[in-house]
């Protein structure tokens, strides 16, 4: 056992933390949040140059990381600073699927992704799929040497900025079958593709994506026909490791802000942290933070394990972070009082990032049920 970061990861963490501390303060981020695109291209390129994206791909894929603990190193720092730029969508999800499944030509995109030149989105969830991974009703129909996609994808993050979308669609089987799901690389300007965008509460943008007889060459398929389910599950597992790491980073910021505030804010002639009712809650937060860190380590350390072990740990982490995240976000706000609810105070954004993370890739309850299923299996 060794709980230290490798030298390379430690260096990446240090440089990322320094960069974000200098370049990504509350005022800067609030400007990004209010911008039409919801992201900063300058920040994106500079972070790509720092190696943030490269760290999310393996050496065979052209990067220098790609393991669970590379993901945690990057996303914990992004979370700590409340970064809203779509590294998850472009690199972990869509980019990861291209790297995992793509043929030689498709994998050619990975270099562009790592350099920061390409934006991507993963259009998978649908209006009635909630958090079910394999519930896909968007259809893919083969017509001679073309494939025609039809359906609607819900809350697709980064769809507007994306140059290409990785879209899941069903080629065969029933709506919730594992078998029969394929992935396609769809250019943003494809005929019949409609992207209706909107801002998200916790920053960034998403869109409803409608596919109305989008006709693609068969070469647009990523991987084997109808066999994408397990690749999707593995990528969502990586995304969940990224998500819980980001949440952990955000929770650290919330905890630090709250600790500082309890020490400096005075009421009744003394720092409010000297009141036992608040001091004990702060202690509980610190205890839960240690639990959270361990859950993230468990999930990251098992990302390369066999499916059942991996998924059990991913669901354990997502469940625990859903619960702990809510506690940290709510208690941080409560112990600050009104100030924490103002947009110009850092905690407001951080708390939203923490809580809304429970709405991505399955919430606390969903992952409790999944944990039970994978424990029994």
């Amino acid at each position, binding site marked *: 056992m060794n709980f230290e970061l490798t030298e390379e990861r430690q260096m990446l963490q240090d440089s990322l933390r320094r960069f974000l501390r200098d370049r990504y303060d509350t005022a800067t981020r609030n400007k990004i949040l209010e911008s039409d695109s919801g992201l900063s291209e300058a920040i994106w390129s500079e972070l790509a140059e720092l190696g943030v994206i490269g760290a999310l791909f393996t050496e065979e894929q052209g990067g220098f990381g790609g393991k669970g603990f590379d993901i945690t190193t990057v996303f914990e720092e992004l979370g700590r600073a409340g970064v809203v730029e779509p590294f998850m969508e472009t690199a972990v999800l869509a980019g990861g699927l291209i790297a995992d499944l793509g043929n030689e030509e498709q994998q050619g995109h990975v270099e562009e992704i790592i350099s920061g030149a390409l934006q991507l989105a993963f259009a998978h969830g649908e209006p009635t799929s909630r958090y079910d991974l394999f519930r896909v009703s968007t259809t893919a129909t083969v017509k001679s040497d073309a494939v025609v996609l039809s359906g609607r994808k819900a809350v697709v993050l980064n769809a507007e900025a994306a140059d290409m979308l990785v879209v899941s669609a069903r080629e065969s089987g029933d709506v919730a079958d594992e078998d029969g799901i394929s992935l396609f690389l769809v250019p943003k300007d494809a005929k019949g593709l409609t992207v209706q965008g909107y801002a998200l*509460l916790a920053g960034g943008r*998403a869109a409803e994506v409608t596919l109305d007889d989008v006709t693609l060459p068969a070469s647009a398929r990523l991987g084997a026909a109808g066999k994408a389910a397990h690749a999707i599950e593995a990528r969502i597992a990586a995304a969940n490791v990224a998500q819980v790491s980001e949440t952990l980073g955000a929770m650290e910021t919330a905890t630090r802000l709250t600790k500082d505030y309890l020490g400096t804010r005075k009421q009744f002639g003394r720092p409010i942290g000297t009141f036992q009712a608040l001091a004990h809650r702060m202690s509980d937060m610190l205890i839960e933070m240690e639990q959270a860190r361990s859950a993230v380590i468990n999930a990251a350390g098992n990302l390369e394990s066999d499916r059942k072990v991996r998924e059990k740990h991913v669901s354990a982490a997502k469940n625990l972070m859903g619960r702990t995240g809510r506690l940290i976000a709510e208690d941080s706000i409560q112990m600050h009082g009104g100030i924490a609810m103002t*947009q110009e105070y850092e905690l407001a954004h951080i708390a939203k990032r923490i809580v809304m993370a429970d709405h991505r890739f399955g919430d606390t309850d969903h992952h409790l049920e999944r944990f039970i299923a994978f424990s029994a299996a």
Partner: protein
Amino acid sequence: MDLSYTDEEKAFREEVRTFLAEKLPEDLSAKIKGGKELVKSDVERWHAILNEQGWLAPNWPKKFGGAEWNAVQKHIFEEEAAAHHAPRIVPFGLGMLAPVLQKFGSKEQQDYWLPRILSGEDWWCQGYSEPGAGSDLASLKTSAVREGDHYIVNGQKTWTTLGQHANMIFCLVRTDKDVKQQEGISFLLIDMDTPGVEVRPIILLDGGAEVNEVWFTDVKVPVENLVGEENKGWTYAKYLLTHERTNIAGVGFSQAGLTAVKRIAKAEMAGGKPLIENPHFAARVAQVEIDLMAMSTTNLRIVSKAAAGTAPGVESSMLKVKGTIIRQEINDLARRAAGVYAMPFASEAIEGSNEALPDPLAAGPVAAQYFNNRKLSIFGGSNEIQRGIIAKVTMGG
């Protein structure tokens, strides 16, 4: 003990239902149902409709033009209003200032201000909290110095809800710096149009701007706007907060919120079935519903006792704590229920914005409401302050 409603009470419920069916404007109930923010004229319209019916001030004695309802009547109205998606009554004039004026104000003040509250001529806001005086309200610093027929007011108030709509503000001000904090505070009514008053909006984490900072620079306030005696304001403030807390149980809000949770969970699909059929989610809903049923009765018991002549003391603190916990839990469930569709930023909830949102569940801005209602356990004396009061009263010290 008898939990059944009397024939009179049943008839009253029918009367309320008929009134709401006939008089509640559809555009207003649609806004409430959709979780949208009301504009000033919406509130004024609803207040005027209630006033015409004589129901705008359920707590006021009849001699001041109130309905003087008993606890059960108020409970019935609150239930029906919530079920019909009626707007809430904005409480600053009606529920907070008015009881103070009725108990401590002069005859002239009562005759002048109370009818204007009912008619909507004045929109009141509350000037209590300051940047340095939140939970420790008595440490407030906004000063009022007597000069002839006027007080000269200087300082800053904050978290002033709907101050952007108000033309009048009731304030706690320091009139004596040399005595114990609580003994140097006065209760002053200030016209917001007076030179030197400035209102600045505070943008909250849900994007809305319902609260404000109010700044006072050499503001001249006529001495007849002092309520009661100079330096007795703390007594009046505590009286007011007790009233604020009685209403804060929010049973009607919780009932409406729970109905909305069930509606969303019927529309949302999970595993190919409506989410409401998911045992885990159903258990969460049932748990809070059980709590709400008990609290509804707690509320009735306490309010009945108060109506019979016992001032609500420690019990109002209990209602505040439990009531806000339940409301916040319901907000949390609504957010959970909406799944990925809780993520969009519902800017249409904010006054003046019309950006369309994907909302296949007709859930409304549930996540924004969840964040906004974190305020419930903070304002009106935080839940920690309330627990302190409960402990102090019941255990001494």
